[in-house]
């Protein structure tokens, strides 16, 4: 997990006046499961297409294993793609679909037959050789698309929202399936999705993107627990994002009340954003909390109750396994290490979050 297998340097891309990617730098290590995560229009798919060779960057280079491959067409690149909506060849059988890349490479028939069997077994669709893509369900087609890509033994598999068209249950099954596949094959996955849960479940590394900029790169835990800015915090999971002032190291003033925290080096009296995850808020007796509030909404969510607590003019989102009826006066308590301090964004761009999914 050390060498840079793919290295994107200073990539920029625009369509007409529309800037999609702006001076993007990103590297992907060997055998990594890296996810590009972001709302639609953030540039994640374009990034993938530039890696795959379907788009040319306006500026910057793509290196593969140390070599500049910016000018290679897709068929000369040692990577394969699993497309959104599968892009199976409808005029061919399943076996012909899977064999396509191998035939192009001129492999022997026996080898191809072997590979088809192996690939179908891998995706749990043994015996489907002679079916046509039209006769398969969405999930099955998805697996065939994966099988078609992996028989070519690519060093990197690019997946463009591969689970987007599947229903929830199937999507969850396929997530496990993909992790299993990656472990069995031992190749690098670059995965594009707008679904944060998918990203957090499967990835080694998550790259959160918005408006053509990388917002944060890190492990799923980092991204979730320590979002670097309000966009990431808001995009990943539920959170309370509140304007605050960093009074001094390890002390922050939220809505006029001072909270102890663990962050340092923000200077004194600096305006910041504070992120507090709903499950990190403890509801205690009014007098025991840092701030006092009233429960205004209550919903049962299965694993926990979701509540809103009005305190100091802000609706705090709270997840708790303990039921507190609406109208109850409560105190809010947050452990210092659960308060995440973030710098205010420098530009408007970074702040704008487009949630249309």
């Amino acid at each position, binding site marked *: 997990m050390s060498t840079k297998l793919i290295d994107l340097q200073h990539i920029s891309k625009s369509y007409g006046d529309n800037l999609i990617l702006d001076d993007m730098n990103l590297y992907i290590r060997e055998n990594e499961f890296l996810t590009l995560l972001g709302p639609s229009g953030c540039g994640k798919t374009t990034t993938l297409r530039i890696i*795959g*060779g*379907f788009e040319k960057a306006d500026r910057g280079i793509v290196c593969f294993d140390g070599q500049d491959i910016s000018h290679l*067409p*897709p*068929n000369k690149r040692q*990577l*394969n*793609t699993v*497309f*959104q*909506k599968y*892009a*199976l*060849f*409808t*005029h061919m059988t399943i076996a012909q679909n899977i064999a*396509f*890349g191998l035939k*192009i*490479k001129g492999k022997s028939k026996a080898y191809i037959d072997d590979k088809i069997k192996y690939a179908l077994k891998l995706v749990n669709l043994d015996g489907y050789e002679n079916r046509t893509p039209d006769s398969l369900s969405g999930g099955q087609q998805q697996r065939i*698309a994966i099988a*078609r*890509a992996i028989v*070519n033994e690519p060093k990197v598999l690019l997946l463009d929202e591969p689970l987007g068209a599947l229903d929830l249950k199937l999507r969850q099954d396929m997530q496990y399936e993909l992790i299993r596949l990656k472990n069995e094959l031992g190749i690098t996955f670059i995965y594009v999705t707008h679904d944060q849960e998918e990203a957090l479940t499967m990835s080694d590394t998550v790259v959160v993107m918005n408006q053509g900029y990388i917002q944060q790169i890190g492990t799923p835990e980092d991204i979730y627990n320590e979002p670097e800015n309000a966009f990431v915090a808001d995009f990943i999971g539920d959170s309370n994002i509140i304007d605050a002032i960093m009074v001094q190291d390890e002390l922050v003033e939220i809505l006029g009340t001072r909270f102890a925290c663990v962050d340092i080096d923000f200077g004194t009296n600096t305006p910041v954003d504070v992120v507090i995850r709903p499950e990190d808020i403890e509801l205690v007796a009014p007098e025991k909390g840092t701030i006092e509030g009233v429960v205004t909404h209550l919903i049962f969510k299965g694993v926990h109750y979701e509540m809103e607590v009005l305190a100091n003019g802000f609706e705090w989102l709270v997840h708790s396994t303990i039921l507190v009826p609406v109208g109850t006066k409560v105190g809010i308590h947050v452990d210092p290490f659960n308060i995440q301090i973030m710098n205010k964004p420098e530009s408007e761009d970074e702040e704008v979050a487009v949630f249309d999914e």
Partner: protein
Amino acid sequence: MNKKKLWLSGPYLFWAVCFIIIPLCMVIYYGITDKTGAFTLENVLSVSTPEHMKALGLSLLLSLISTILCLIFAYPLASILAGMNKNQHSFIVLIFILPMWMNFLLRTLAWQTLLEKTGVINNILTFFHLPSLEIINTPYAIVLGMVYNFLPFMVLPIYNALCKIDKNVINAARDLGANGIQTFFRIILPLSLPGVISGISMVFIPALTTFVISNILGGGKILLIGNVIEQEFTQASNWHVGSGLSLVLMVFILISMVVSAILDKDGEGSL
């Protein structure tokens, strides 16, 4: 509900029986009877006379060449059009239908003006001291007329078929290692085949049966099977032979219908 819907097909079925099936039966009747109304195969068999065979052979040859030329011209054109800015699509497609609003006979006649020995093209050629083009009243002119008149019928179905292809399918083929040519022959061409098939039948059949184009551009020197049939009906007033020969033509049409039915399984020879 379904029963009610089936009932809706009544008007059309009635229409189809009245104006498609019955007339067809009448042609068949005329084709297999003589002037006294007695059954005979002579009319159909008259196709085997050398004159008729020659006309039929020439028709088949010329329409085949025209179809192939149309395909050669239309495919790249359709694929260029399909790759163009989506907003311009409708306009560009209409540009190919637009000439049809100028009368078919006038358009063909205009080619005569263009191609004649002292016509526009030759005047231009002479001006540049180039050798003149002498194809009027030859089979070449007829082929030109056919290609000209039927090209849109080849372009549009292919264009529609190409537009239906998901771009990612092409990307997928490239991704799996196919170069441009391989992608074309293994993916694009097979996927656009229904369009090609319907284009072929929409060019080949009218070309096979035309008599106007050969009349105007062939200078009456070239007798196609369409001319023979037309003359049997309008000049020799021998409807029986005319119908008999029409039946022979219908066999070719039937063959091409069966072929396209087999190749275009969806039955959506789209326009």
